[in-house]
């Protein structure tokens, strides 16, 4: 995957940087891209949350809903 950390402040913890990368990915996949109105079948409840912080997911989905 090319979407990666290009730069992170030395003051940031690695875990925080990883969270930001995940948020950036979710934000783009779920709230960005070409929109085909009425034809999105993604069910947010189906997302596997094993490695994804729930707050990050909610933020991305909430942003998608507001657009």
């Amino acid at each position: 995957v090319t979407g990666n950390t290009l730069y992170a402040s030395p003051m940031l913890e690695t875990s925080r940087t990883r969270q930001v990368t995940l948020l950036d990915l979710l934000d783009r996949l779920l709230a960005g891209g070409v929109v085909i109105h009425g034809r999105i079948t993604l069910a947010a409840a189906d997302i596997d949350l094993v490695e994804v912080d729930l707050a990050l997911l909610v933020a991305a989905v909430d942003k998608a809903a507001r657009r």
Partner: protein
Amino acid sequence: MTLLLYAIAGCAPEEIDGNGLEDRPLRAIGEDDLVAVVTHHDRAPGKTGHGALWEYEQIVESLMARHSILPARFGSRFDDETDVRTMVRDRRDQLAAAVALVRDAVEVSVSAIWPERAEGNAGDTGANPGTAYMLARVQHHKQAQEIARRLEPLSRAARASTHTLLSQPTLPFQGAYLVARDELEHFTDLVREIDAGLEEAELACTGPWPPYSFAEGGRS
């Protein structure tokens, strides 16, 4: 029959190859130099979990490596090829303009990050909790606006940009920048330079991403 959409690509149909989700071959629907990249499925794939998200992203990134593309929102589907052709035909001018905007460019994300802190802490104002909370919100918004101002050189270094303030309490600024591929290193150096002089927050920069934030055209 279900068709899953991955991207709109600015290339001829015969230039699309490779596989999509569930190892279904990628197909191009369209004509001339604008096609929708899809896979055919007997029914909608059941996987919509974390693994499918990463797999989808890798497929889109492999397309981006070879073509100018507008990535589709994850989960976009059509019932038949006629719907796809109609969508490409009806939105041709808009899609072609967006493909031209992203040609030879990638998306970069820049986030300003605050450490975790208590909501409503606006200093010792002596105000009641409700007022203190509102004062803190106002103060945080002003701080976020100041961070956005400090990051303005990034917009000038990008082909297009968009940003949001305070999408989360600890994220005062999130920006998306469309950057020419050969300017990526220079852009990253600029982020590093701004971060070194920024005391209000810490910066993180991720990418290169497919141009998800610019798939509907440029915003700045």
